């Protein structure tokens, strides 16, 4: 699949602001499964930006809007192709793989994605209560992750505006409502509590004709887990689906803190934010 993604991030300020320093992670990932053919950004006011790659391999840009301005507009346009054959429906899980998953070496290698972070901390007894029946029921860890996704999907009510970017997994759990970010943090906490390395993924979702899919308003978030002999496998608990070629990956990290799409510090008063995202399929699957 080939997509064109356009994102307008538009800040308007009540009074002119200055001394603004901003950082964004909006460039789609470029790797074996997904190719970022082009990436363009347009910043208003017109200022240069500086690129670096962070610890997780994400593309980051920083820019300074120093003079007085009443609005800040960032338009990013990317073209991405996703290899449709890189995804499998199922993973056969051998006993050896299970041993490998819980080995000390595996634990050490993916330690960052097994830790509790500010967003993913859930009381141990809650983790236990939720995962114990699922762990008993599942055939293997891959199956377990699917069950966790389903559990969250069934238990939570998707409610835009019910939580904020600062809501933690434990707060979302209290009310059983949230958006993709909350579903993701909760799933990370549950997978990690059972020793399955899991990371936060931010990106875009192509909905097309499928009106049943949620998460279309702006950027999306989901989970990737690491299982032995497999790459990172994506699960989208908000839609309870296995991630395939409709999810466009942008950044990964331990939780939201590591992948914040755009953040900034400036001198001045109140801001209003408007984000618009459009994802178009410009080419259907092309068979080789």
């Amino acid at each position, binding site marked *: 699949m080939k997509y064109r993604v356009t994102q307008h991030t538009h800040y308007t300020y009540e009074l002119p602001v200055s*001394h603004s*320093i901003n*950082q964004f992670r909006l460039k789609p990932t470029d790797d074996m499964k997904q190719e970022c053919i082009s990436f363009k950004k347009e910043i208003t006011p017109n200022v*240069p930006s*500086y690129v*670096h*790659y*962070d*610890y*997780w391999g994400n593309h980051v840009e*920083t820019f*300074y809007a*120093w003079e007085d301005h009443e609005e800040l507009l960032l338009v990013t346009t990317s073209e991405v192709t996703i290899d449709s054959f890189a995804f499998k429906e199922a993973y056969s899980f051998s006993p050896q793989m299970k041993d490998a998953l819980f080995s000390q070496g595996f*634990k*050490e*290698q993916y*330690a*960052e994605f*097994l*830790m509790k972070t500010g967003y993913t901390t859930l009381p141990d007894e809650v983790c236990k209560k939720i995962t114990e029946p699922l762990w008993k029921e599942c055939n293997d860890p891959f199956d377990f992750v699917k069950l966790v996704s389903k559990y969250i999907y069934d238990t939570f009510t998707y409610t835009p505006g019910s939580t904020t970017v600062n809501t933690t997994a434990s707060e979302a759990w209290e009310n059983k409502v949230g958006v993709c970010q909350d579903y993701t943090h909760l799933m990370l906490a549950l997978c990690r509590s059972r020793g399955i390395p899991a990371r936060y993924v931010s990106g875009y979702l192509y909905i097309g004709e499928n009106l049943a899919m949620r998460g279309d308003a702006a950027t999306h978030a989901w989970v990737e887990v690491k299982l032995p002999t497999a790459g990172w496998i994506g699960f989208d608990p908000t839609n309870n689906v296995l991630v395939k070629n409709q999810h466009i990956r942008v950044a990964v990290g331990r939780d939201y803190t*590591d992948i914040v799409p755009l*953040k*900034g*510090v400036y001198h001045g008063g109140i801001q209003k934010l408007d984000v618009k995202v459009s994802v178009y399929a410009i080419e259907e699957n092309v068979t080789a």
Partner: protein
Amino acid sequence: MFKTYETKSFFDEMLQEREKPRAHYQTLYNRLSTLPEDELQARHEAAQQNFLRQGITFTVYNDDQGAERTIPFDFVPNIIPKDEWLQLEKGLIQRVKALNLFLDDVYNDQQILKDGLIPRELVVTCKYFYPQVTKIKVPRRNHIFMAGIDLIKDENGEFRVLEDNLRNPSGLSYVFQNRYVMRHVFPDFLQDYNVVSLENQFTHIHDALSSIAPNNITMPNIVLLTPGVYNSAYFDHSFIAQQLGIELVEGRDLLVRDRIVYMKTTRGLKRVDVIYRRIDDEFLDPLEFRPDSMLGVAGLLDAYRAGNVTISNGIGNGVADDKAIYHYVPNMIRYYLGEDPIIRNVETYFLRDEEQRKYVLENLDQLVVKQTDGSGGYNLLIGPHATEQEREDYRVQIEKNPSNYIAQPMVTLSRMPVFRGEEFSGCHIDVRAFVFNGEHPHVFPGGLTRVALKEGSLVVNSSQGGGCKDTWVMTD
């Protein structure tokens, strides 16, 4: 006055046994024995007054009164013979060199973790590991401009490292004040000895800071970044800035524009090349660390990343002085330098390890237990001195989060005489040695001798009722 002084089973710095001083203390011993008690008392009080007059105070946290206090000074100096010091110097340079290589490795290729010498998990999940600073090319690969290494002597009189401080070690100003007071109130004591002078030390320190400027600038603009007057170590900050002849600034005095750091002056903006910062990592830059920080400067990390400014000590150093990592420092020395450690560690048990935890919990009454991310002597358990109830409470804490704790055998720190009016009594000491790293490593002669003034206490931290002594390194 020494008639009643007992060395007991401890290693005593001054006396081999009752009324028998070690060779390098003989002269001082004779002098102290001949001076009348009331004169010593008068001079002792004059010394305390001197500290108060100069406003050398520190703030005690966790204290409802929030009072600023002076650190009690004791006039019996800690004297280190030349040979012993030279050996110690070598050991300190070796240790800091290895720690610096470790930091450079951990924030770049993580080779030592790949080679399995230190559990990767311990490092990358450490609260002080900051992924934000990976792959940043630090000038001269210098992460540790200033290290404060806490040393103790065990019961055999052998120096051991108790703790490394690689973030913002404080206390340097007290070393100078101790010497200042010694010179003014006890000049006769000093005249009896050939002691390495502290006169040129700030030249060394300034040179070290200049040598780590980015892009090999020759006359860099260096500033000291402080959190401000309410910080417990503010006296230290202002004293050092003054002695180095550099600006003392707060976050609001700096700004970053297009990856360059500037200082606001009455004549406009002035570019800053080196920041000797005394602000904790997470408060440095609200863009990339704590967004609520009012102490830092937005964009600082971006300027650091661009190679336009040196931030010293480096960001993320806490991963190397964590109490859990301490255990692995001897391994680091062997790994990076191919040498055996010159100064030994104190044995450490990890509570994250089930077997070791079992041992520790069974022997709480004989061990000292510390939080791995704690400092300042807060919240530690000294098993042999704690009550049954205190040990039980601590056990509950440990069981909640074992990885957060380490334990060490109760090392009986060496003791030395402390003036108590009618007599001298033996108190435990440690020494914070300072190592500066610029073009070449340099060990500050002596350091800060801290003394546990509470009867029988082993905690020397000034926040826990510790005092200090002058430290003399002999030139002959």
